[in-house]
């Protein structure tokens, strides 16, 4: 039974089919065997019983014919009839012998037939003899053979009876056999029907049992399990129980291993989702840091860009200067020969220049002195202005006093007017005086206020003047410094021009070589100019690169912000994923 469940479904179906076929074969064999026995019986009948019966019938007919022929012979007295009767008698005897030689004859019948045969042979000889004598000698016959004839007639009757009974017995036997066969056939049919019915029912039951036990119920179990997994709450710990080792068992095994792998994967996903969640949080933080860094980088690169621009401008101006220098050198080179020619006049010019420079130096010295004086004067002016401010403040204080006095006067006038009122008519004049005093007091108050305002104005203007003087002082100081530096430069120039005038003679001799050197220098300067131009373009490129770096860093900043956004989104996604994964039971 265990083995039956462990074989494959195809084999199970084959087993069921073979059971059906076997049952069919069984019923077929049963039917065939039953038919075979009937056939044997029938062949027995056709081989033995039927020929015997026919022989007995033939014997009876020939015998009757023999008797008739004997009678005809006696009547007609012809010997030929007796001979024909003899032939009939041999036929009868042969038929009887045939019956006797048959196997299926019963022993009592056999004995009976032997008796008949013996009697018949005797009868034939007697009859042959008597009837032939009767035909030849009819006058003597009656006397001699009347007894024998009577005996013969007796025998004839006996034989006839015997042969008739024999043929009757045989035909009865045949009938009996046939009825037996019919009965047996009927019983066989019923038996085979019952057997077929039983076999069909048992085969159906067995097949149903096999299919339901080994195919349907495991399939149903598997399906319900799959349904549970599919419709349930994603419980991945559930497994399909494996009952058999057939295809369903295999299917369950592989499905279980699939679920196992799925469970592993979901577990890994869950772990990774948690990690992802944490990582995305970190990523978000890093992105924030990156944004900060990028912002710093952007400012730095902007600084660099600015610096580079300045550098570019400088280099450009340098390039321009170099070009100018180149041009100048070229013109120098061109004019160097002229210089050589004009050196003598240059020498005198240098002398003139030297004297001019001396004059300039003197003038500058004067200017410096004047500037120093101006500085002194301006500091004096500042002092005076400060004093003016102080004086104005003092005047302000005086106006305060004036104000207070006028208030007092006002009070005094009020008291006077009160007194005047109390005095009645006598105080009228006094009241007028008091009123005048009051007016005077209020006028003084107004004037004092006016003065105070003006004093404030004066103070402010004084302060402005002080500021202006300070500025003037600064300018004069700068002027002084400039004068000093100019003076120094001029002194140096004077020295240089002195040296120049000394060396001009030496130069004069070397001017020619200088001229050639200057042309070389010109070419060198040209190269330098080119190089500077190259440097300028390189610097420009560098500036472009820096600005592109700047824009790139801005882009990076943007990217970093995007990264942060993405990280935030990733965070959300990781959380969602975590949620989804947590739906599974693993």
């Amino acid at each position: 039974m265990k083995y039956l469940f462990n074989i494959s479904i195809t084999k199970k179906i084959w087993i069921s089919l073979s059971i059906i076929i076997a049952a069919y074969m069984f019923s077929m064999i049963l039917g065939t065997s039953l038919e075979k026995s009937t056939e044997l019986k029938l062949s027995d009948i056709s081989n033995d019983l039927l020929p015997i019966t026919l022989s007995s019938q033939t014997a009876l007919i020939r015998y009757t014919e023999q008797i008739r022929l004997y009678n005809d012979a006696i009547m007609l007295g012809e010997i030929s009839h007796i001979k024909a009767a003899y032939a009939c008698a041999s036929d009868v005897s042969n038929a009887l012998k045939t019956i006797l030689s048959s196997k299926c004859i019963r022993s009592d019948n056999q004995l009976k037939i032997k008796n008949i045969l013996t009697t018949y042979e005797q009868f034939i000889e007697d009859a042959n003899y008597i009837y032939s004598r009767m035909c030849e000698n009819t006058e003597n016959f009656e006397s001699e053979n009347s007894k024998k004839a009577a005996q013969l007639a007796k025998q004839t009757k006996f034989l006839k009876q015997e042969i008739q009974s024999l043929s009757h017995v045989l035909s009865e036997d045949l009938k009996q056999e046939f009825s037996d066969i019919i009965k047996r056939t009927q019983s066989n049919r019923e038996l085979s029907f019952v057997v077929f019915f039983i076999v069909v029912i048992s085969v159906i039951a067995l097949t149903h049992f096999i299919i339901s036990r080994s195919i349907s119920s495991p399939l149903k179990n598997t399906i319900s399990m799959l349904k549970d997994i599919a419709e349930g709450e994603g419980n991945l710990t559930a497994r399909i129980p494996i009952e058999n080792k057939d295809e369903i068992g295999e299917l369950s095994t592989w499905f279980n291993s699939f679920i196992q792998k799925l469970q592993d994967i979901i577990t890994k996903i869950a772990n990774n989702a948690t990690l992802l969640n944490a990582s995305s949080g970190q990523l978000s933080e890093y992105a924030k840091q990156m944004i900060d860094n990028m912002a710093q980088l952007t400012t730095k690169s902007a600084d660099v860009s600015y610096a580079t621009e300045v550098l570019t401008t400088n280099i450009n101006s340098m390039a321009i200067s170099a070009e100018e220098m180149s041009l100048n050198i070229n013109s120098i080179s061109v004019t160097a020969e002229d210089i050589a020619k004009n050196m003598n006049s240059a020498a005198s010019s240098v002398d003139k220049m030297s004297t001019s420079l001396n004059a300039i130096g003197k003038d500058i010295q004067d200017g410096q002195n004047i500037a120093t004086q101006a500085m002194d004067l301006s500091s004096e002016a500042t002092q005076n202005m400060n004093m003016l401010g102080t004086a104005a403040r003092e005047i302000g204080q005086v106006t305060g006093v004036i104000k207070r006095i006028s208030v007092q006067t006002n009070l005094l006038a009020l008291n006077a007017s009160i007194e005047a009122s109390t005095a009645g008519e006598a105080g009228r004049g006094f009241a007028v005086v008091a009123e005048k005093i009051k007016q005077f007091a209020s006028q003084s108050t107004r004037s004092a206020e006016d003065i105070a305002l003006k004093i404030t104005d004066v103070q402010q203007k004084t302060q402005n003047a002080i500021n202006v003087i300070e500025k003037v002082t600064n300018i004069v100081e700068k002027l002084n410094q400039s004068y000093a530096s100019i003076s120094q430069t001029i002194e140096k120039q004077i020295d240089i021009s002195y040296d120049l005038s000394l060396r001009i003679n030496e130069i004069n001799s070397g001017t020619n070589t200088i001229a050639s050197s200057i042309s070389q220098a010109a070419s060198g300067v040209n190269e330098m100019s080119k190089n500077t131009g190259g440097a300028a373009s390189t610097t420009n490129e560098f500036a472009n690169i820096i600005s592109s770096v700047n824009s790139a860093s801005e882009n990076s900043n943007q990217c970093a912000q995007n990264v942060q956004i993405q990280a935030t989104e990733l965070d959300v996604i990781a959380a969602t994923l975590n949620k989804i994964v947590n739906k599974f039971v693993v």
Partner: protein
Amino acid sequence: MRRIDLKEPNHHSKQRQFCTFQISRHFYGVDILDVKEIIDEIAITKIHHAPEEVLGFINIRGHVYLVIDLRTLLSFDKKEIDESSRVLLFTSDVGEAFGILVDNIGHMVEVDEKKIEFRNQDDNQLDNSDKRINSLEIGACKLDGRLLVILEARKFLDVIKNKDE
């Protein structure tokens, strides 16, 4: 409305003179005939256990005057004495020697009596504080867009006494 009878009728029956002063932004006046003098040197000697309206004594040329804080009397907030503060001293006709402290002194104004609207003195329905002010403020008159409230100097001491009782 009824006219108050003055004890000393003015010679010019139609014209009256008032000494004006300010408390806060309000404009007040007292009859000039009641005023003895206005002083600006305010050196007050405090009196302990005196009513809160009484600031203390002041010595003017050997005479001692009682000084009343008009702000407190008229239920204004208190204010420190400053350079514009003045004390009005009243004549001996008004009462025993006293004066009032005011924020600011004004001018002497002369007003036609017809322009003054005197108050009804019926004050049965008023509470204590309002009664006091009611008895002090005897009338008002309009002056160049400003309202001059006229106070009765003779009532100041009475009001303080009544309150103490």
